[in-house]
């Protein structure tokens, strides 16, 4: 029994069957990669997990509880954080405030009327946010307005925001898309360190096979809304069906 159990999930947009009959089981403290060609339904699946979409059929269980029908903020409070394909950050706020907000959400829950306390007096939140920014090497950019960051930095910031909540499950939607090689390697190192601590389950969508094979413990290949095969990275690399559907004939 994994921490995340997706059973028979289907989603249809008008005439398009985006997800057919998806079954997925992610074990605790592992990294599960979902790969597949464009339009395979990877992002749709992730959207079903965080409450952005509600699947037509099937069930999604996280940590023994159903996710379906819950609002996005409730699902996050259960312990699921997501890094989006295009970075979703608070563009008008400073980098430091961007990290403080999830720290508040973690400590105070989805709503708290703390209108009279000063932010400067929240020493525990400040310390937490500082430590998190330090971990992603962004402490010197703490006072920068987030919208003026480079794309790579925005992704790092979003990852820091998600990690600062200490989620049980981290969903990563193409975390290195559009990144330079050096940034990609930095991201891989960061995720590896976090993974080594063994406190976090990761579910990652990625096109970059270098990232997938350096991180994943198990890989699911999705094609046209249905899982083609699920196996360890070693077996996926050599799987004839996968090569045909996704990797092509080129060497990996």
């Amino acid at each position: 029994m994994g921490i995340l159990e997706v059973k028979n999930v289907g989603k249809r947009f008008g005439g398009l069957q985006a997800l057919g009959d998806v079954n997925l089981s992610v074990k605790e403290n592992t990294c599960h990669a979902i790969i597949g060609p464009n339009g395979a339904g990877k992002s749709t699946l992730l959207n079903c997990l965080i409450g952005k979409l509600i699947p037509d059929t099937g069930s999604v269980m996280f940590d023994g509880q159903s996710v379906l029908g819950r609002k996005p903020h409730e699902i996050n409070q259960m312990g699921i954080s997501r890094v989006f394909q295009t970075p979703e950050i608070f563009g008008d706020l400073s980098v430091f405030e961007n990290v403080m907000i999830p720290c508040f959400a973690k400590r105070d829950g989805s709503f708290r009327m703390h209108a009279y306390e000063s932010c400067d007096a929240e020493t525990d939140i400040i310390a937490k946010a500082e430590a998190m920014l330090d971990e992603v090497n962004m402490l010197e950019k703490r006072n920068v307005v987030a919208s003026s960051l480079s794309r790579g930095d925005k992704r790092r910031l979003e990852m820091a925001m998600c990690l600062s909540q200490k989620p049980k499950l981290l969903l990563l939607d193409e975390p290195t898309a559009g990144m330079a090689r050096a940034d990609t390697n930095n991201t891989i190192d960061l995720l590896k360190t976090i993974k080594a601590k063994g406190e976090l389950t990761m579910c990652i969508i990625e096109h970059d096979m270098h990232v997938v094979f350096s991180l994943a413990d198990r890989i699911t290949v999705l094609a046209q809304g249905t899982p083609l095969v699920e196996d360890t990275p070693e077996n996926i690399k050599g799987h004839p069906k996968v090569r045909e559907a996704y990797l092509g004939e080129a060497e990996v």
Partner: protein
Amino acid sequence: MTDQTTDTRMDATRPRASAAHKSSGLLGLTGKDLGLFIIVALLTILAPFILNPFPEGSALAQFNGGYPDLMQRFVIFGIFAIGFNILFGLTGYLSFGHAAFLGVGSYAAIWMMKLLTLNVIPAIIMSIVFAGIFALIVGYISLRRSGIYFSILTLAFAQMSYALAYSVLTPITGGETGLQLKATDTPLLSNLGPTEIGRANFFGVDMRASYEMAIGDWLFTFNAGYYIAAVFMLLSFYLAIRLFRSPFGMMLRAVKSNQQRMNYTGLNSRPYTLAAFVISGMYAGLAGGLMVAMDTQVGPERMFWTASGEVVLMTILGGAGTLIGPVLGAGMIKYMENIVSKINDGILHQWFAFMPDGIEDFLVFVIHPFIGKGWHLTLGLLFMLVVIFLPGGLVEGGQRIASVFRRKETKTSTVEKSAAEQQQHSE
């Protein structure tokens, strides 16, 4: 190389940590905020002097704004705009119906005075309570939508309130004529003579009581009502600063910045926006209550949509999302409404009397549409100029001027420095 990076990191940490230790400060405010609050407090206390810079009887005396009625308007509309800014400036939700809360507050206050006591404090408290309850209802419904739909919903609510106050609810609101204190009113706790019309007071101090001080040709008026309203304004301003600097204020800015990310970060944006809406509604109610405390009358036109639009203008003109902007905007608009509208052709002829007749008439002809009843035209032009050239409002204008001076200073200092270095080299 690595040493350098750790060094900058340490530097980045230090000022924040020390600020956190000092945060108790005075009244819980630190640095710039404390300075701003003290400046605003001084300006409000000394307003009778500052707004009356010209001696009585001089040609410029009509620019004096230091009479009680106008000063009261400054602070009351300042409160209204500060509250509106908490909603619009922080969360970005543009309410177009805030005058409804002002009106509800006013009606609640006048009824307290008619029925219970002529002391203004219970009236003001009830105006805040009623406006808060009404804002809770309106906000709960309107906040289901955002953007233009939210604005239209609030506008619809305000116009409904206006229509109700104007006609259907006449027994409560006095309809078209509104409500004012009458000789027939017998407040429970006030001993009035049989034909005596009650006057609003603050524990016995008449709100209209004024002390006039003449220094040479200058005349300064210190009005009880103004100072009571000013105390409420300073209190409102102080609470607004605290809110801006609080985690709650940060969440409201997060709503404006990216509501989607906020929800996926485990925060429920709805109660945050509703709380902001109710707080700003209560500010509007306080402003409405204070208006009644000053002139003991209210009419439905206080809820008309132009009144809602006016507070939007004030906030944007001054600088939405800034602390001091809305107060500046409110002062600016009220000053123009009362001063520019007073200037007439006769006064213009006086000013340009030194010019040849033809030019004098021509100048008066050109300026005529912008003064007197045409003050709206002047305001409209000013608003357009600000929105186009200073999207951050008057506050941005101030910042730009300040930065020009700062740049000059740094320029001279760097020039001096390089000159000094050259000297050293030559030595």
